[in-house]
């Protein structure tokens, strides 16, 4: 069974450009999470989908970030326009279960975003 996959693994963009990160969760997992680690600090929660609905988006830093999960399968996280402080590693995770978040979260390898 395939794990959580993220594309691209690395992305280098200029300030002001747009970048879209993609996450394919484990098949059948209703819960999908985005997290971010900036400059060696703690891994911080961004948002949580249950199927196609946003359950919790309290961690989204500002309106330059837009997450979608059309059809309840894969998810995209768009940053537009990107700023220098958006650099970091973006992790996606998925878990089984219903609206309460399921159980063990399985993580992808992350996308390393560098804004120059």
């Amino acid at each position, binding site marked *: 069974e395939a794990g*959580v996959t993220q594309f691209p693994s690395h992305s280098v963009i200029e300030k002001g450009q747009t970048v879209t990160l993609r996450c394919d969760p484990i098949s059948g997992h209703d819960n999908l*999470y985005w*997290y971010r680690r900036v400059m*060696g*600090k*703690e*891994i*911080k*929660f961004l948002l*949580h989908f249950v199927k196609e609905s946003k*359950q*919790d988006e309290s*961690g989204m830093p500002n309106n330059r970030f837009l997450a979608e999960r059309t059809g309840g399968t894969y998810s995209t996280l768009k940053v537009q326009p990107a700023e220098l402080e958006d650099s970091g590693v973006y*992790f996606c*995770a998925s*878990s089984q*279960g219903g609206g*309460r*978040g*399921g*159980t*063990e*979260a*399985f*993580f*992808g*390898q*992350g996308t390393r975003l560098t804004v120059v």
Partner: protein
Amino acid sequence: AQSVTQLDSQVPVFEEAPVELRCNYSSSVSVYLFWYVQYPNQGLQLLLKYLSGSTLVESINGFEAEFNKSQTSFHLRKPSVHISDTAEYFCAVTNTGFQKLVFGTGTRLLVSP
């Protein structure tokens, strides 16, 4: 609100020596606790977890952690480390509704021969 503190950013240790990575948490509600590991150039992997029952939990590769409610700790230990244990270790907490994980800042374990 919940928080996790990992006081040691880096722990150097010689191969076959014992190691303890410290984790303390703060929460006003009941929690589940996790240790995740990130090996070089890989994603996060679950190492072990405490949900309920025995306060001592073990991983398949010899690590163990003990949930101590009175001290709000979940320290990770291994009696004899290997070179291959070199990685970054993250302690995390979630409420019993399995919502978002709250992570510590990570501890980099450096095992040398």
